[in-house]
């Protein structure tokens, strides 16, 4: 789907289409709903202001991903950040989950497993979370992740390797 930016309607379509993606990238870094809203809003304001012409839809998506990553990173170090510590954010996230009364025991266990996996990722050092998310969720190659995060590909690979090792320890005993 190629969305041109000629009209306000097009911008609205782009924003609605990519809001979940931007939100998730922010969440992988911040793990806080309120902060994720702020980052998402900031990303699309920048997108509108930039008013760029993109070679393709992939180009637009890559631009948005990069903007979301940078905005999330800057948000952590900005004065607007109110929360501190990942554990608190994870607890917030965990508490916000509500389970339907109709969930079966099997589905409940699956949900628990997924939450355990996500919690483990959110316990990783901040610098590893974005590469992990882009690699395992967005399915981006390491070269593209390196371009987005403005690092070397070897750095991305070593970050992923270290993250995997940490996740192994965090998820020890967890049966997939």
């Amino acid at each position, binding site marked *: 789907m190629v969305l041109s930016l000629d009209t306000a309607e097009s911008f*609205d379509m782009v*924003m*609605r289409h990519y*809001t*979940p993606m931007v*939100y*998730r990238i922010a*969440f*992988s870094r911040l793990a806080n*709903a309120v902060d*994720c*809203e702020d980052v*998402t*809003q900031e990303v*699309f*304001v920048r997108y*509108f*202001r*930039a*008013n*760029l*012409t*993109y*070679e393709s839809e992939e*180009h637009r998506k*890559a*631009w948005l991903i990069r903007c979301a990553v940078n905005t999330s990173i800057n948000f952590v170090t900005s004065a607007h950040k109110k929360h501190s510590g990942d554990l608190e954010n994870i607890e917030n996230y965990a508490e916000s989950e509500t389970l339907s009364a109709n969930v079966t025991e099997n589905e409940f266990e699956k949900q628990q*497993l*997924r*939450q355990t*996996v*996500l919690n483990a*990722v959110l316990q990783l050092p901040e610098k590893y979370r974005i590469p992990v*998310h882009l690699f*395992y*969720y967005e399915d981006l190659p390491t070269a593209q992740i390196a*371009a987005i995060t403005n690092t070397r590909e070897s750095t991305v690979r070593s970050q992923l390797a270290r993250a995997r090792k940490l*996740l192994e320890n965090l*998820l020890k005993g967890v049966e*997939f």
Partner: protein
Amino acid sequence: MKFQEQYKAEMNSIEPTEAQREKIYAAVYNQINNGEASQPKKLAPSRKKPLPLKTIALAGASAACLILVAGFVIRFTTKNSFMVDAASGGANGGAMPGNSISAPTAEDAAPEGILNDYINKSEADEPQSSESAGVADNSSAISGTPSIIGENARLVFYANCTECILYTDGEPQKFVLTSNTKTLNGGFSFTLPPEKNNLAQTLHITLKNNIIRVTADNQTVIGQFTQE
């Protein structure tokens, strides 16, 4: 892959609620409409990296310098070897590379002129007086003991050249080199080590206790024989 599946599944459930979306969109439009003038359109930064012109220019300059240096080196080394080859050019017609040195026989004919020219241009530490005085051509007469060897007689031969010159206390003597290793009566002969065949070097001949010893520049003894 299990981890990826679980992570993806959980992340798929992470998205703003409807209320959050409306809140985000309202904030975006509010910010846009509050005096944000639209910027003129411009091309997004290309994903392609620009040509590293600086690197290419530097590499080109380095390559040019290397070629110049290599040219100078080749020019100078070629010049030196050409001198040696030119000196031996006259001898190529029938000469054997100097694998052994023996006192020339009467049949050996020494080419004239070429060696004299080479002596004048040679970088070997030849005694100037003997060079300027010319070299006595004794090739036709040499078949026995050189008249005088002296304490520090010096036998000089050149790469790819079939003549050698014996510098002694007397007149320098020119000899034609052959592959004949026969020891002539009163003469001297020795076989050069194969690895030194293509090297121009100065041989030193000493006579002590009737033993003629031939050594190379580095004091390596190449051969010794008893003067008869």
